[in-house]
């Protein structure tokens, strides 16, 4: 007990001059305002991403031609990926068109905000602030439950969540588990998966870049040489992050489509 206190005191003493490891506080970037009404950097980036996407999608598809230009082709590729690769394949031909705009918006918005994490002047993934994934998850949550209840009626929708044809006594355990999964754990994992991946990725890049910078500027000759390795790792993980950022945008959209499909499909 006393030993750990000594360690703590030493650590806080050394903190004034030594290396600061990145901490969750690095994610708080107030711009103006204070308290609960502070306008922060991720808010600005979210607004910026909506602006960029809106302008980009409108201008690139304004003069839509049968033989597409380069810009139109790229938008069509992205749209095709979400429409056919996610919405149609998972929700099915009958109902997918209604949900395609939502899924496409989700995918492009999350992808751009994730990619902000490695785009040089910005370099901060918006989704590493938990509020943004929670807001997106709430939209998906409301959409799939309401779609299911409107399609099947509340009673039929709730009973449809329980798998049929199992031995009777098991239902005592299965029924609470299924409802906990549908109503609590699913949205929880959906939001936390996106948040956690972006948060950890940004933390990792911060560590390698800040560590490298510290060793290069404040270290002895030996540390200056080692800092090259740290910057190299930062470079490798930046490429790796690009993959994760795309993957997480894809998974979020895929799961949203799955939940909608699950809620409105007849069989179980």
């Amino acid at each position: 007990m006393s030993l750990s206190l000594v360690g703590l005191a030493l650590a806080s003493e050394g903190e004034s001059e030594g290396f600061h490891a990145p901490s969750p506080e690095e994610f708080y970037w107030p711009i103006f305002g204070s308290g609960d009404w502070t306008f922060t950097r991720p808010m600005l980036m979210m607004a910026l991403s909506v602006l960029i996407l809106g302008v980009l999608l409108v201008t690139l598809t304004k003069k839509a031609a049968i033989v597409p230009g380069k810009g139109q082709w790229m938008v069509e590729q992205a749209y095709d990926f979400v429409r056919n690769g996610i919405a149609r394949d998972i929700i099915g031909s009958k109902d997918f068109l209604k949900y395609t705009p939502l899924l496409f918006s989700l995918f492009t918005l999350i992808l751009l905000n994730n990619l902000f994490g490695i785009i040089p002047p910005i370099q901060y993934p918006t989704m590493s602030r938990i509020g943004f994934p929670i807001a997106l998850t709430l939209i998906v949550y409301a959409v799939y439950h309401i779609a299911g209840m409107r399609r099947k009626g509340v009673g039929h929708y709730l009973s449809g969540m329980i798998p049929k044809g199992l031995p009777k006594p098991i239902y005592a355990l299965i029924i609470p588990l299924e409802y906990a999964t549908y109503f609590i754990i699913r949205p929880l994992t959906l939001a936390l998966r996106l948040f956690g991946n972006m948060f950890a990725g940004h933390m990792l890049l911060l560590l390698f870049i800040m560590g490298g910078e510290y060793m290069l500027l404040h270290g002895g000759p030996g540390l200056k040489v080692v800092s090259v390795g740290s910057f190299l790792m930062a470079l490798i993980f930046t490429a790796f992050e690009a993959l994760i950022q795309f993957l997480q945008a894809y998974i979020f959209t895929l799961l949203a489509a799955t939940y909608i499909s699950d809620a409105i499909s007849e069989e179980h």
Partner: protein
Amino acid sequence: MSGPLPGEKEGGDERGLTPLECKDAGHPGQTTPPMWDALSYVLAGPLLFGGVAYLLDRWVGTSWLVLPGVLIGMAVSLYTVWVRYGRQ
């Protein structure tokens, strides 16, 4: 990606379907959720039954219920994953 091509006809003309609609037809939709979602079930069991056991512990005044609660939760989770993903 490609819109309706002028020359494309894949049946279904009698109901006046556009070529795009013909192309979209016949996708049944996915009945089993993808594997990513199994995580929800794996977490739900231990959390739910462990949580209930913890509350029971506080209510009754015992202190040994959480472990069996979590274990039962894990078992129910695995069973549900098998029911949902492994039973076709």
